[in-house]
């Protein structure tokens, strides 16, 4: 003990609650400011989640620059025999998306987390949105669509392309109503989340 205490530069200590308040009060205020600015879509935030499946729904998604191709992802859920955590998904990339009535539910350690945004007059916007989904439904329309393009030649979302030879879809615009996705990974360069709400419990 004595030897260990000699190395320690400070003596035994305790928490001073006034000092705690001095930091935590402005920090909490700053946190609420961030939440409010996000909800007013003044502040754009970044997302990248994966590992566990989650559900995304939206009443309408409009996008500029659409790509879809198959990908082999890793997941906590075993899928292919032999490759216990490899899973085949469709990568759906949109360069610029506006989304109305976005609802995303994911499970974090047994808790269901629901994020909603864009229910008001201002839609959610996202750039470089990539969703790796195994189920996807809705009424979709595309313009200037290519079907069966080589995935390595995709250009609609700069920088996102698949392996050579793979089958891909590409379109310059996409509109999907009543969108429902079961996804394993999503990333977006930036997200604005007007009318942002985050709560535990419930479903989309």
């Amino acid at each position, binding site marked *: 003990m004595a030897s260990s205490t000699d190395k320690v530069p400070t*003596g035994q200590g305790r928490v001073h609650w006034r000092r705690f308040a001095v930091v935590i009060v402005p920090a909490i205020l700053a946190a609420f400011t961030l939440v409010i600015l996000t909800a007013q879509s003044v502040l754009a935030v970044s997302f990248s989640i994966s590992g566990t499946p989650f559900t995304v729904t939206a009443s309408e998604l409009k996008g500029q620059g659409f790509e879809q191709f198959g990908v082999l992802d890793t997941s906590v859920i075993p899928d292919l025999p032999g490759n216990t955590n490899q899973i085949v998904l469709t990568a759906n990339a949109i360069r610029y998306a*506006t989304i109305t009535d976005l609802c995303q539910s994911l499970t974090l350690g047994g808790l269901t987390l629901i994020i909603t945004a864009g229910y008001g007059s201002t839609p959610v916007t996202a750039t470089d949105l990539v969703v790796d989904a195994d189920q996807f439904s809705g009424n979709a329309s595309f313009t200037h669509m290519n079907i069966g393009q080589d995935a390595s*030649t995709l250009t609609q979302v700069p920088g996102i392309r698949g392996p050579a030879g*793979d089958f891909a879809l590409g379109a310059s615009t996409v509109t999907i109503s009543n969108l429902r996705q079961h996804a394993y990974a999503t990333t977006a360069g930036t997200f604005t989340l007007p009318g942002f709400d*985050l709560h535990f419990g419930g479903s989309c």
Partner: protein
Amino acid sequence: MFGSNLSNRSGAADEDGAAGPPPDGPLSRARYAFRHWRRTRPFWGGLLVVLGAAEILVSEHAPLPVVIHIGLQGLAGYLIPAILLLIGLLLWFNPVQRTFYSLLAVVLALGSWITSNLGGFFVGMLLGVVGGSLAFAWTSSGDPGPAWRPPWHKPAPKEPSEGLDLILGGPHDDADAAGDETDEDQPLADDAAGDPPNPRSQSVGSMRVLPAGPLSLALLAVALHQGPLASALAPARPPVASAASPSPKLRSSAKPKPSPTRTATPRPTPGRSRSGSAPGPTPSRHVPHLVARGPGAATAVSSLSAGLVSVTGLSFDGIAKVPTAAGGVQMLKFSMSSMAFSDGSVLTYAVAGRSVATSAASIDLSGDIVLYTTMITGELNGKKVIYSVKHPPTGLSADMTLTDVVADQPYASADSFVSSGLKITVA
């Protein structure tokens, strides 16, 4: 809360145990050592910061290629929680600098809201903020704590720099005093009231040199992220508006149509130079969009099938050599003005031994459709037909309806694709 309670109370509760002679047995000896280690640093604050950073990192497990694509913003999403984790560990292993580390932890935790999944969906951010605040609030009875005090607090004694003294060999008496205090274990002695003024404040300036590394990293991470943030602050609206109506940006990207030369790019080079793989909106007849633009057809096994296909303005344009990743492939080339799939239309393609099926109640393609395919089977007027490169179709009428159609290796482009009840599943 509980953490600070523990660090607060444990001193009193275990005082006799800690103050008494070292207990026997390796287990209790280790516990004693750990308890002492824990009490001599902002343990709970550091733990909450570490947990918060870990939670943010866990929430943010994205495929690496995608992160690299998103680039600096995406990396900032990892950098902020990584630094936060480092700060949490430094709070444990270099508690002398705790004022700086704890405030930095609070700032980084707040910053993670923007960069990293809303601060790990609020949980990690909250842990980081509370942990940082706890670490800031922690003071050692062996030293009077950091120099800064709330304004209503009585004038503070000078801050010691024991960490530096360890290196430089500080004044003897002070070092002994600190050692005595820790050995005697009087954690609740007083609230730094009776601490003597410390003469070693001149070293405070040099103390700040060490954390400059993490600080500049953190500032860099925030700065990296400022691009999207700034762009979101000002022009968030125009793109929203332009998305509703056909945007000028889109039109301009579609207009510069490469000249329709069939031999332009024979190989499917992953080209960035092409002005967009989408076919142009105002094409002349029989423009070989796909080949002219050089995006190769996919080689993965794929098929397009439907119970009923109605075609208008059909013409068979011969056999074309379509570039693919595996070299040129001869395919039938059709062009038409509209194509309607119904009665169970499915597009399937193979990925890594699985198949991705896109089914829809109906699919309507219109506007300058070009379709390449290796083979079409179906029924025409009750008669089974097979069109392939070896048996190309002859005498097709411009408007026709086929049933039970399957097109292999479809490679198509259309100005408009409208589907209802679209469903994509991985089988």
